[in-house]
């Protein structure tokens, strides 16, 4: 027994040395929302470049920002862009900056469970904000009923359901609400976790979906991918052009295209309530956070190589996993921005 243990230790040690010799391993951490996409990408990239292994820990956006700032990982990932304070903290600690690279797009959709109602409902900005502020409390409130003529809405109390844990999904939702409602902006604000005026908290998309499904008269939000993969019914949302849009991969990419024209150089842009007739208004990029300077040129080249591949071939894998592609303009701009990594 002891001999076997000793032998396997030796084998492990030798394997470790050989492994370390032949493979460059790069570590990243952060957002959970794009994790299925990232693990697919890193896997495919490793198949094509056997000498590069990218490890990704989906510990959450906050954790990703923290770890990359601490320098414990080579790159981070986040669903909400770093704020100025965090960027400054990074600059102060390292002496150089950190760059945002959008990878894919996600969206939130409003889901509901009203007994007797199977129609696809239309929601205005005021209706969604009013429900989440606790001002609209009944399903037959005119703010909800007016854009849904012909649907018999009950006079039941609305049960609001939201995510309980900090999440990028919540960030997108509250970012949207802050844009369409001044009251939300001043009273609640946007963030991965907020002080909700009303509602029940459920942990994870699954639990939010489960709570909505199980609770009559519930209303909440889930990620588009989750709604598509689980065939959940969800409503249309009125966009800034006044059209009621159903979320799908095309309308999410359209939101990004609408915003792409005014894309700032650091890519820190919110595309909720985006312009464009076909744009779905509750969408967002998700970003990789890559330091501007690397002490190890091999690592730098590997990460740049990956991002280049991700922007080109990598985008072909997105729709199979229900993520929306980046618009062409954004891809072109990012490819240029890669030169800023030294």
């Amino acid at each position: 027994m002891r001999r076997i243990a000793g032998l396997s230790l030796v084998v492990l040690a030798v394997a470790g040395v050989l492994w370390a010799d032949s493979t460059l391993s790069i570590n990243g951490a952060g957002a959970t929302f794009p994790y299925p996409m990232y693990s697919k990408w890193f896997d495919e990239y490793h198949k094509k470049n056997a000498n590069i292994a990218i490890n990704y820990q989906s510990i959450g956006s906050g954790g990703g920002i923290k770890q990359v700032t601490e320098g414990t990982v080579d790159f981070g990932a986040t669903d909400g862009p770093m704020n100025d304070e965090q960027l400054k903290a990074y600059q102060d600690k390292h002496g150089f900056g950190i760059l945002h690279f959008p990878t894919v797009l996600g969206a939130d959709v409003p889901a509901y469970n009203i007994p007797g109602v199977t129609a696809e409902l239309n929601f205005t900005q005021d209706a969604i904000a009013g429900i989440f502020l606790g001002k609209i409390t009944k399903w037959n409130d005119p703010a909800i009923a007016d854009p849904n003529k012909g649907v018999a809405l009950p006079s039941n109390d609305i049960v609001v359901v939201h995510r309980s844990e900090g999440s990028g999904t919540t960030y997108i939702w509250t970012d949207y609400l802050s844009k369409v409602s001044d009251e939300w902006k001043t009273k609640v604000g946007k963030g991965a976790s907020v002080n909700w005026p009303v509602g029940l908290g459920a942990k994870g998309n699954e639990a939010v979906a489960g709570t909505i499904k199980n609770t009559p008269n519930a209303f909440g939000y889930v990620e588009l991918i989750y709604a598509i993969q689980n065939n959940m019914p969800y409503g249309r949302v009125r966009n800034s052009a006044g059209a009621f849009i159903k979320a799908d991969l095309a309308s999410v990419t359209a939101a990004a295209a609408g915003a792409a024209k005014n894309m700032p150089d650091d890519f820190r842009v919110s595309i909720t309530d985006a312009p464009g007739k076909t744009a779905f208004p509750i969408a967002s990029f998700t970003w990789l956070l890559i330091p501007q300077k690397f002490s190890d040129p091999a690592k730098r080249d590997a990460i740049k190589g990956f991002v280049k591949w991700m922007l080109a071939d990598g985008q072909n894998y997105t729709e199979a996993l229900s993520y929306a592609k980046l618009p062409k303009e954004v891809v072109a701009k990012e490819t240029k921005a890669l030169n800023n990594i030294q």
Partner: protein
Amino acid sequence: MATTTTTVPGAGPVAGSRSFLSRLREGDEIARMITFLFAASVVLVTVLLVFELWQGSALARHKFGFNFFLTSVWDPIFEQFGALPFIYGTLVTAAVSLLIAVPLGIGAAIFLAELAPARVSDTLEFFIDLLAAVPSVIYGVLGIFIVVPLMRQYVQPALKHSFGFLPLFQGPVYGIGFLTAGIVLAIMVIPYIISVSREVLLSVPREQREAALSLGATRWESTWKVVVPFARAGIFGSIFLALARALGETMAVTMVIGNTPKISASLLSPGYSIAAVIANEFTEATGELHTQSLIELGLVLFLLTFILNGLARLLIVATSQRGSGMGHV
């Protein structure tokens, strides 16, 4: 728990009479030092834990001071943090769970140890151990899909109908909330109470039972008046183990409690617990004050456990002094 003593009478003087070197040679001294290190590591880990929690929450402690315990706004955006709703939720759910689990658990343990045939007792013990080993997330899923719908459709409307005049059972019926969390916790801790209490009851010396029976006591009288009081300290131990588990349980609670930081007298309304909010918000907490407030909540949970455990020990001491020869169980 509280009843085990580690000193073996007589070992000390004998060991002391031999020279250090000979003891070293014979291995006694080495064994003593190694096991001492192991024992000391427990203390070390506890001290380090408190130190880390204390250090990590410095900013939040200075900013909010004692108000942290007294305010009930939890707002990560405007950086206002108060722990009261979480403390309340933790205590209420733990209390509900013990109210349900203690009578059921001890009753079952008495049956298994005293009244059931040995084969039945051993078979059931196997299932109880199995239940104790089920991961808490499984209980959470069962909670969401089975307990919550049952509570919403049958239990809570019935409670509201019959006891709606009490503030405990008022407000809208969601299915989730303090009561549901307490019930799921009770299901989780009952195996601990049964398993430990059964062992303790089985270890009560036979002479105790025989003496009671020979004095003319019935089987139940001997169980209830002699065996159970004799095992009282151990049974309390099982309850404290259950309490500790209930206070710290995270996954199952967060899945059924509603995660709403509000204080409400009604057991039907949604609430929040300390462990649940830490698990929910820690990974995505980007603000320094937010992170530190969550760490301070960890400190609060530690203190809460510490205080309740201290009270528990006092309770044991108080009852054993009055009791009949149980100090040395």
